[in-house]
């Protein structure tokens, strides 16, 4: 298939970016979207031009590195998959495809389609962990956990931190990401110990970094490659409210 690509090119965060049109020919419908970009880049290198920078790592849909806002949707037109899992058969011959980086103030462009998602790491650093400082490895079944809770935690933990929720949200809100990271601990006994501080610190960090406020548009759930539910956002709101109401003043 032959396609026109309208790609955002930007040398670095300090310089202005712009869209550049590229034509690609004879792309197999069975090629993945990233392979299609590889083909473009090979040609650009041969022609002595600067190849298009984009994030990718596993190309198996599990690492969360790949991104790309394709024709108005993060990770392109398919539901429940990452960009690396999408194939060119999803597009029509002759189509123009607009490819943009994630757009959010806390995600500055590094180069072209690559953005800096360190902000997510900072949120994790603010409380997205369980501190276990003593003792040996406990027996796996030492603490009984209801199947339902284990499943809920596992669903939340399937978040790969790609940032599609932020990219899809009209407010550039990170609530789905943060709520998944809060929820995966909130429903488990191991996470309950630090639950109050965790939710407060992670939300405070999220706000401080400049992500937008959630207005319950649910675009995040629609675009999440792991189909994480907005019910986690409600759980985080609950956790946050109750932690604020019951926690003692910090000394």
């Amino acid at each position, binding site marked *: 298939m032959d396609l026109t690509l*309208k790609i*955002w090119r930007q040398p670095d965060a300090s310089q202005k970016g712009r*869209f550049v049109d590229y034509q690609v020919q004879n792309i197999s419908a069975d090629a993945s979207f990233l392979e299609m970009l590889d083909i473009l880049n090979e040609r650009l290198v041969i022609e002595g031009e600067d190849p298009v920078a984009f994030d990718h790592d596993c190309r198996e849909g599990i690492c969360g590195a790949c991104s790309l*806002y394709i*024709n*108005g*949707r*993060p990770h392109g037109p398919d539901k429940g998959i990452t960009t690396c899992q999408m194939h060119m058969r999803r597009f029509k011959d002759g189509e123009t495809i*607009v490819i*943009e980086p994630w*757009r*959010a*103030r*806390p995600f500055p462009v590094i180069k072209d389609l690559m953005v800096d998602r360190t902000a997510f790491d900072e949120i994790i650093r603010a409380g997205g962990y369980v501190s276990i400082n003593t003792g040996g490895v406990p027996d796996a079944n030492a603490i009984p956990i209801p199947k339902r809770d284990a499943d809920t935690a596992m669903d939340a933990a399937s978040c790969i931190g790609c940032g599609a929720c932020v990219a*899809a949200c*009209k*407010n*550039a*809100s990170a*609530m789905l990401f943060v709520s998944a990271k809060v929820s995966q601990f909130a429903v488990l006994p191991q996470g309950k110990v630090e639950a109050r501080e965790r939710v407060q610190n992670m*939300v*405070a960090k*999220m*706000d401080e970094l*400049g*992500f*937008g*406020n*959630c*207005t*319950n*548009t*649910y*675009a995040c*759930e*629609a*675009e999440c490659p792991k189909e994480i539910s*907005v*019910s986690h*956002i*409600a*759980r*985080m*709101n*609950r*956790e*946050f*409210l109750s932690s*604020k109401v019951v926690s003692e003043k910090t000394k």
Partner: protein
Amino acid sequence: MSKSAFSYSSIAKKIVMSLAGLFLTSFLVVHLIINLLILFDDSRELFNQAAHFMATNALIQVFQYVLFFGFILHIILGLILQIQNWVARPIRYEKKGFSELSYFSKFMIHTGAIIFIFLIIHFVNFFIKAKFGHIEPITYASGTYEDLGLLIVKLFEDGGYVIFYVISILLLGFHLDHGFQSAFQSLGLNHSRYTPFIKAFGTIFSIALTLGFITIPLVIYFS
């Protein structure tokens, strides 16, 4: 430690906003019920009686201030929220996304802004006149009341005003369609069993409320 309204956490703002929004919604229900009384009898007796009660009952008078405060809170928080949300995405997308699952969520600030303009005009037309202006009294067997009903009938005989009123109420309905279920989600009330019910109820409620409010000017204008 001093805190500006901008520095409250995103979740705290949404919780306050949702409570204010739900309170405003409950007020709309009361308001609609009283309005509908005007269609009840041609002499407007029932309506004027109800309006008289609302204007004189002590509890209602207190709630008037609560309501005013609720509006201010909801509007100011809504504005702050929206400004922060615009700032959070300095460069817009070339190709706009439409992935929202709650469609009217995209237009809350726009529908809100029109409701706000409507509120001001509404305030000038009814509230200020009813509270501070002189309104002709009318005498029924049950007593003498200010004929607020006549003021409404007169206004709704103006086609331009009716169109403006109907459009504003429609937008209020859109605002509520998203707002109702959104408020529950903001408060953390999401449940696999009840959330589908809340969403359906919110939509039916918004349609019913909109139709209720719109019926009144249409009936008066066309009769």
